[in-house]
């Protein structure tokens, strides 16, 4: 049920963003090569696997934004979506460059405390092997909110 709701939210926000976007396509790649968006054209399996077009359009990433800058309020979701493979491993250790940067995009002042907290709650924030980046982001957010000191330390939550 949660996944269905999430999908609906994503689709709804995508439609809204697409409606607001008066360009006829999806970024510079679309302009030059109308049959392919830049994201799908690069032929790299990982990009396609990590950034579904739906997600990419929602987040305003390289293929679809007019200037490629990730919207600041979407940075953490974009980050979680793009780096789910590394985060899955590093969060189990509670440390690492990807964990530290995740902490940074969430506006957390103490990356070490963030990492330790996520390690302790690993099974909750990554409940299955199929956990998506967006789900991970939501679960991490919930964990931060449940922890008074982290909630205070993480400014973007």
């Amino acid at each position, binding site marked *: 049920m949660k996944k269905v709701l999430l999908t609906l939210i994503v689709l709804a926000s995508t439609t809204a963003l697409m409606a607001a976007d008066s*360009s006829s396509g999806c970024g*510079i*790649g679309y*302009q*030059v*090569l109308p*049959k*392919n968006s*830049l994201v799908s*054209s*690069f*032929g*790299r*399996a*990982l*990009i396609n*696997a*990590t950034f579904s077009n739906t997600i990419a359009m929602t987040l305003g*990433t*390289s293929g679809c934004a*007019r*200037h*490629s*800058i*990730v919207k*600041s309020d979407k*940075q953490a979701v*974009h*980050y979680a979506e*793009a*780096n789910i*493979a*590394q985060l*899955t*491993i590093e*969060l*189990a*250790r*509670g*440390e*690492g*460059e*990807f964990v*530290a*940067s995740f902490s*940074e*995009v969430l506006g957390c002042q103490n990356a070490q405390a963030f990492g*330790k907290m996520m*390690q*302790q709650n*690993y*099974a909750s924030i*990554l409940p*299955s*092997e199929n956990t998506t980046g967006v789900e991970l982001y939501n679960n991490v957010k919930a964990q931060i909110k449940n922890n008074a000191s982290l909630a205070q330390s993480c400014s973007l939550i």
Partner: protein
Amino acid sequence: MPHSLRAVHLFKIFHTIISTIAGLLIIGQPLIASDSFQSVSELKTYLFLQDPQYFSQWKNHQHIEHHQSTSKLDGPLFFLAPNGKTQTDSELWASYLAFQKVASQPDLKILSGHFNYPLQCVFLGRLHFFRTRGLFKELDPYNCPEFKAWVEGLKAKSISLVFSTSYPNNPSSLFGHTLLKLNQENKSGLLDYSLSFSAVPEGRDHGMVYALKGMFGGYKGLVEITKYYTKVNDYNHSESRDLVEYPLNLTPHEIEIFLFHAWEIYQTTYADYFFTDENCSSVLFDLLKVALKDKITKPAYKWYFLPADLIAAINPVIDFNRTSFRPSLKKKLICQFAKLNEEEKKFVLSSKRQVLSEEKLNFAYNFRVLDTTATYLDFLRINQDGRLQAIEEQNFRRALILRSQISGNDSEEVRGDDCDSETSFSREHLPHLAHQSQSILGSINQRKDLSIEYRAGYHHLTNADRGFDSFAEFSFFNLKGSYQAANSSFRLEKIGLIDLMSLHAYTSIDPQFSWWVTSALQREQSRLVFFNQISSGLSFELSDHSMAYYFLGPKLILKTKHSLDEASHRLALKNSLGYLARYSTLFKWGLMGEISPSLVTLNNRGKNAEFETNLELWISWHVKKNHDLIWKNNWRHLSWATKKDETLLEWTYAYAF
């Protein structure tokens, strides 16, 4: 032009020069107003007096090589004059008129570029060109909300050149890849933006088609700006390539100019992609050239421009003391695996085949084993097209859950995984240490025959390994001729089209095949033959300094002429066996053998089942960077020839430049 008109024209130019000089001398400002130029000649005169180097800088803006007049950019939206791609002056004049129009009519909106932004907000590179020469001061780039948002989003405080090492499974990436990292003032660097120029396949081309189109044209290349972590994912993680980061010494003003120009390119154009000279590296060079002007130079004596050439070309602005690199996923895995004992290694490898039971997992209650298991299965997932088998997925999950239960209180060493850090790895392979990418080789053999060879885009087995992964060979063109002492004649020895030898060490954690491809017109006995071979095989790392290989594959020889003494066209099965080693950074040597029985022979004398045997021993002395001295002894046996055995002893001096 009638005489009277020409006189008027000359008078106008003369008037412009005199008034400009007078203005500059008297009040420090030109007397002519920015909207007073009536022709491109007047404009050029004015610009020349402002800056004698203006024209070369304008050509930099237009991506026109020093001695040429046509822009390398191909997107029509970049040119404001209909013939702007080939007519530099027309483009200069059209740009001036366009800015003059919007400057004189503030309410007028001329929309340009891919996204229909106001003209003065799209062509910021050339607007800056005019503004720094006293024109259009009223058009402020920072009044453009889209550009302002872009610059504020990038937060670029400095720029680094990033070199992605080669990806052996993809022929088009053999020479590596380059991109720029726009560094923010954050801690990790993952959150920075990257700027790159890449070929964009329009269909779903793969492998050789991709490489051929990339080399000979067929793709459009685009500037792409994206978060750096997506590049780390692509190269470092998915393709297991090291990323080497070279910080550049750029002033804030140079960074600003770079961003103006990059924005203009991003908003308007693309360039047809060619592997040799319109590739990821040459376009980055052209972008940087606009900001760095004469600080960086492209070597005029090279007809191609590879990623390693970019490092050499911008060498003066690289801060080599701050060079850093991110080891690839494969290197991290090898590092982690090497730290385990035999039993632990078996445990990690078993995660591929069998369910890790409670009992086994209890044994593995050790952060090193669990970390290595997770890295191994992550690596395996990539090699299996992004999927793990159900058992593997289950083991991956279990290992990570267990790992998450080991915290600082449970183990004293939980923070000991230094395989994430570059300090655990040798820096010998960093690309700036490599020899130059083309070379001239002069040789003499025991018959006193002299030969000279040119190699382009190459790294040979006999070359020093510094700057490359150990024991690799690739070249995309070489040409060899010789002077035959016996009959005092010159002859062509070889035209090599491609030669790629990729030696992957076959290991339990990465059991990959090696491969070897050659295509050349070369001499066999006294005849030129068209020689093609493609082999696959296994390579084994015997120590840190030695390797052995075995290859098997078809070899096709097509003869240009026949004689009674020689086999004709033939298809053979090539068996190659070799041992390669190096001693310190000074010497390398190799013993390479080949036995190739013919499978099909079109022989004028009706012979079949012929075979060819080759054995070669070589020793290479790396005298200094770019200089090698090679001794080679080759013995060859051709079963069909009158003179069956032939021995060649050769001394070669190789100079890379």
